[in-house]
């Protein structure tokens, strides 16, 4: 099982360690540092690293490596899942999961880790149980604590641990009963030169915010459940009912949670709501390159495409860019070579474009990289939305988020 945990920041300092069994010397992390040195990018550190006596399983989130040390054969996915759960919990507690936040709340962090694992076995990972055990820090409570010297440890042991619905605490009361469901979808797509879709798949989630009194039992149904290829449920969803009737039936946890995530495979046709016309060229021997980009809406069912943000990683040889946006503003960071263009809303009558020249280092040869273009946008009240494009010869990546919310009560 999980033996120890080390948190390592981007500059390679171990700033926190926790052991659930005997103490493992932090020198074990040297193997991790070796692997880190070999990797060109921070995210390229392999997630499983063998050492003579231990195995290091790591995840990278918010520029912090969470490195778990295990000594025997433990399913690596189990460890990785748990580490992600730890990060989620920190984020839930502190709002952000940064080195500073963890250091500021080091006591709470230890209390949390102590409660989440017992002897390397997960003990309480449900956020509502944890919150009963250890109260999340608030500004007020921090002030009170510093004055009175009291801790964040709850006075009561959580009752949820004994219940058959461990994700929900008892005795919840609200004056305003409400429940919100957000559908967020992302589409991964590859689009060829001519603009036709080679493959597109949707990765969607339904996030819920439920504030209901007592022990509510909810049902939720879909207009077209057949679309969903593969679904992963929160443990509260009754699987049998879904299998038989395609109805979501569940007692929800209190507060925010992810009800389900689903996958719509490439077999189903996906209409991609925007298109990009691009022309990014460099000429051999010339120190200039042309940049020409136009966006347009496509199959949006009359909905407006909003909050459009284009970003592109230009080749390393580019010194600066002289561009002219038809709307919005653009910035080019000469250090990271990142071009960002805040477009705003797309007006179908007057398509936004960004045209101009890029200056290359004098005498440098033509860059052979294909710039990646990343586009984020939002379309309110539309079910199928986000895309990720991948075209040849210039690789395009489009990403979008859109959400539609609807109120449903039991």
């Amino acid at each position: 099982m999980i033996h120890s945990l080390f948190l390592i920041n981007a500059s390679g300092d171990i700033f926190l360690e926790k052991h659930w069994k005997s103490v493992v010397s932090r020198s074990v992390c040297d193997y991790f540092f070796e692997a880190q040195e070999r990797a060109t990018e921070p995210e390229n550190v392999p997630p499983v690293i063998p050492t003579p006596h231990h195995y290091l399983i790591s995840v990278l989130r918010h520029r912090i490596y969470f490195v778990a040390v295990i000594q025997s054969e433990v399913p690596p996915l189990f460890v990785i899942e748990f580490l992600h759960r730890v990060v989620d919990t920190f984020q839930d507690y502190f709002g952000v999961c940064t080195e500073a936040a963890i250091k500021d709340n080091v006591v709470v962090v230890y209390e949390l880790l102590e409660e989440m694992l017992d002897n390397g076995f997960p003990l309480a990972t449900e956020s509502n149980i944890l919150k009963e055990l250890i109260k999340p820090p608030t500004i007020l409570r921090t002030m009170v604590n510093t004055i009175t010297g009291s801790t964040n440890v709850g006075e009561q042991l959580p009752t949820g641990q004994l219940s058959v619905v461990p994700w929900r605490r008892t005795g919840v009361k609200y004056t305003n009963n409400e429940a919100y469901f957000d559908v967020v979808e992302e589409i991964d797509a590859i689009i060829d030169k001519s603009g036709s879709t080679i493959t597109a798949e949707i990765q969607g989630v339904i996030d819920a915010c439920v504030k209901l009194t007592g022990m509510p039992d909810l049902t939720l149904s879909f207009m077209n459940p057949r679309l969903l290829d593969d679904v992963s449920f929160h443990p509260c969803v009754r699987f049998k009912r879904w299998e038989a009737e395609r109805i979501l039936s569940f007692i929800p946890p209190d507060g925010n949670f992810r009800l389900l995530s689903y996958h719509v495979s490439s077999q189903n046709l996906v209409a991609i709501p925007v298109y990009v016309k691009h022309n990014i060229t460099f000429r051999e021997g010339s120190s200039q390159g042309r940049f020409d980009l136009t966006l347009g809406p496509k199959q949006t069912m009359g909905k407006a495409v909003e909050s459009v943000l284009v970003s592109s990683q230009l080749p390393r040889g580019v010194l600066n860019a002289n561009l002219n946006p038809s709307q919005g503003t653009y910035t080019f960071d000469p250090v990271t070579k990142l071009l960002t263009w805040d477009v705003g809303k797309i007006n179908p009558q007057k398509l936004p474009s960004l045209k101009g020249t890029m200056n290359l280092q004098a005498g440098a040869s033509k860059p052979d990289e294909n710039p990646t273009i990343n586009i984020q946008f939002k379309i309110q009240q539309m079910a199928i939305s986000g895309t990720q494009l991948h075209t040849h010869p210039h690789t395009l990546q489009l990403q979008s988020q859109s959400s539609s919310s609807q109120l449903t009560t039991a």
Partner: protein
Amino acid sequence: MQEWASQLCENRQFGSKMTDSKYFTTTKKGEIFELKAELNSDKKEKKKEAVKKVIASMTVGKDVSALFPDVVNCMQTDNLELKKLVYLYLMNYAKSQPDMAIMAVNTFVKDCEDPNPLIRALAVRTMGCIRVDKITEYLCEPLRKCLKDEDPYVRKTAAVCVAKLHDINAQLVEDQGFLDTLKDLISDSNPMVVANAVAALSEIAESHPNSNLLDLNPQTINKLLTALNECTEWGQIFILDCLANYTPRDDRESQSICERVTPRLSHANSAVVLSAVKVLMKFMEMLPKDLDYYGTLLKKLAPPLVTLLSAEPELQYVALRNINLIVQRRPEILKHEMKVFFVKYNDPIYVKLEKLDIMIRLASQANIAQVLAELKEYATEVDVDFVRKAVRAIGRCAIKVEQSAERCVSTLLDLIQTKVNYVVQEAIVVIKDIFRKYPNKYESVIATLCENLDSLDEPEARAAMIWIVGEYAERIDNADELLESFLEGFHDESTQVQLQLLTAIVKLFLKKPTETQELVQQVLSLATQDSDNPDLRDRGYIYWRLLSTDPVAAKEVVLAEKPLISEETDLIEPTLLEELICHIGTLASVYHKPPSAFVEGSRGVQHKRLPGSAGSGESVESPDTGSAAGVSDAPPAVIPSQGDLLGDLLNLDLTPPATTGPPPPATSGMQLGAMDLLGGGLDSLMGDESEPLGGDLGGSSAMGAGFGAPPAAPAASFSAPVSGGLDDLFDLGGGVGMPMGAYSPPKTVWLPAMKGKGLEISGTFARRAGVIQMEMTLTNKAMSVMTDFAIQFNRNSFGLAPAGPLQVLTPLSPNQSIEVTLPLNTVGPVMKMDPLNNLQVAVKNNIDVFYFSCQYPISMLFVEDGKMERQVFLATWKDISNDNEAQFQIKDCHLSSDAVSNKLQGSNIFTIAKRTVDGQDMLYQSTKLSNGIWVLAELRVQTGNPTFTVCLKCRAPEVSQCVFQSYDAVLKN
């Protein structure tokens, strides 16, 4: 807590010198006094505040261990918060103050009987965390009670506590019988208790591999399946992993378990999903394939695996490593999902590389166009590692999907045109492989390759290019110039390139002998005289001797047809794959190695195997594997059981070969080379019948210094790493299944089961594609599993010896038969036997060593180049004295002289001339034995007369009888 506290301390004091820390402790003295007073205060409120301050000091790294007795005094309280704080303090300091920790024991014991289940659980949990021997003794009684507590929450916590205690003191846990109590908890009514009991038992079982702690039977399985639906996600992982170790009794049970596990595929936790996949993959083996449910299950497996690929990159990586195994075992599951494995621009490199691997595995005629388009795109990326692998992948596609080969080659040519150095080099390496797979098809591209000769700076690419130049020397006009240019810096090249250059130049010489004599001299002297590398030197000597004694033989050896390569080379070996499938979701599946290969202290790790499919009679019970593993520990028993004439064999070393991998083909290659070298010498030596030839081999001056080295060393080092370079030498020994018309007698029983303690061996000999093979059927007629097979031959007339270890990879279960083909060579020690073709064999297994003798048909020693020139034949016939002539009659043979001639040619008896005199056909035939002895024959066939007369003339007349027997056997078959 202590660790992080001290860490914190370290952080804060980082950079400060001893003086500072001294100052630090002195200030604390006063503080501690104050706290001590407060802790001993009568007022409850004040006490609580004091403990809080102590804990706060502790968490920031101050040493408050001096307050131990005072804090422990506060433990006896009803206030839960205070109690928790004291526990926290205890866990931190008990180790450093073991004597005082005893003081806390009473309170723990009392808390374990508290009416509040949460307090009971907290007490037993905390007690388990105090790693002090003295405390653990007192822990036993409360733990026993808690394990049988009426509240499931307490039982669940206590179950984990047993694992903790086992970690501290395993003997104590066993003595106290906690393991049995834990086993009982598997049948608990509460799912969480079951899950934790399973988890604890699994952890304990890891340090006791043979304890059979998790005794699974249909009842417990049912319990586990019920608990599976109701416990937490982590519990589900433990239970699923445990289920995977069970072997269902039949396909019905297997199906019902699958049905109950399938819903887990929809869990949000990817670890649950993968564990469920493991159970399903394993139990699916038992389902009959025609069952509807089987198809349904296959369909259900694909979507969750695809979904895993949209998770975080770390999860994706583990998932991809496992999918790699799954597609090798059951490619049908994901065959339509190729697109999800296309790499994304922002995937970490480790994910990209894994995806590439899977793309190749899934490549088929149907999707190859798409795959190639993608791969070509990848080859223009920036990441060097990724580009290299993409180029290599194109080559693998060409080898895997024949129809696409042409497109792949043109794609590779396009890439070569980019002139990006590493792309070009990688492309040349894979084009070499494509040539090996499709010879004489794409040679038109050689010109393009040659243009890039100068840009190659990596050994592998240089070696590949040199191979191509040597192999196709006749088509490259300036091949000699090209190779000469490489030769200039011969000593600076890596061994791989040197070996390849040597071979290529020898090939060139054999193809264009006139222009390249000087070049070959040069390379041979470079390799043999100026090199310190034994491999290179030995190969140089082999070539040298070959070329100087028998250029025809050299041509046959060096320029022989090579076996085609296939894509299977990069697949995981099936038995390993089966084992890995049983370990889906574990570290083993990430490393693609069996757990025994890397998990520490796992000497006794049970090898898991997939259950056999329904209806197959094979019994693959776990006890079999267990006993096999047990026996293998015993030292190999080489005790003679029969004191007969086979005594000679006893001196042979019968230790089984260390590895049971495929035989290093190099061995046979090497030895074939050696054989020809010695041919001339043996020819005359054989004439002297009583001379023990074995002893002379080493001392023969013709051998040269290079052969003085023990043959084992080069053979071993030749095997894997330089395989590319050794291709030409391999092919004769590689055992290509090219059917030749060579006669092979039917199998006879050599070792009856009665004499072999249950092992029955029947077999025969055959010569296939120039390789002598011993084909055996091993049958296990005993009750126990047989393993560790090895074989040895006694010295024999023609120096027959196994060219590799006996290939019995899997243990032989009772009533199982296995066909084994053992390639032989003729470079073993020589001793004249009576009869001449007698062979004494020793076979060893885990039970005993068995000896038997058999006779091989001498026809299998007839080599392919046994056709003599007419003139030579005539001269030799006259030269051999008539005393050496023997005449035999072949009766009852109704074949025409042409049919006879054809038939004999199949067995390497070549008809050189035919004469017809008075209606009698006279066939003049020659054949050559593997040791270089020529046998000349005159076969008289009278039309309409079933009796033939054969006259044999040979310098070593004692072989005549055997040769005649072969004639007789071949013609009558």
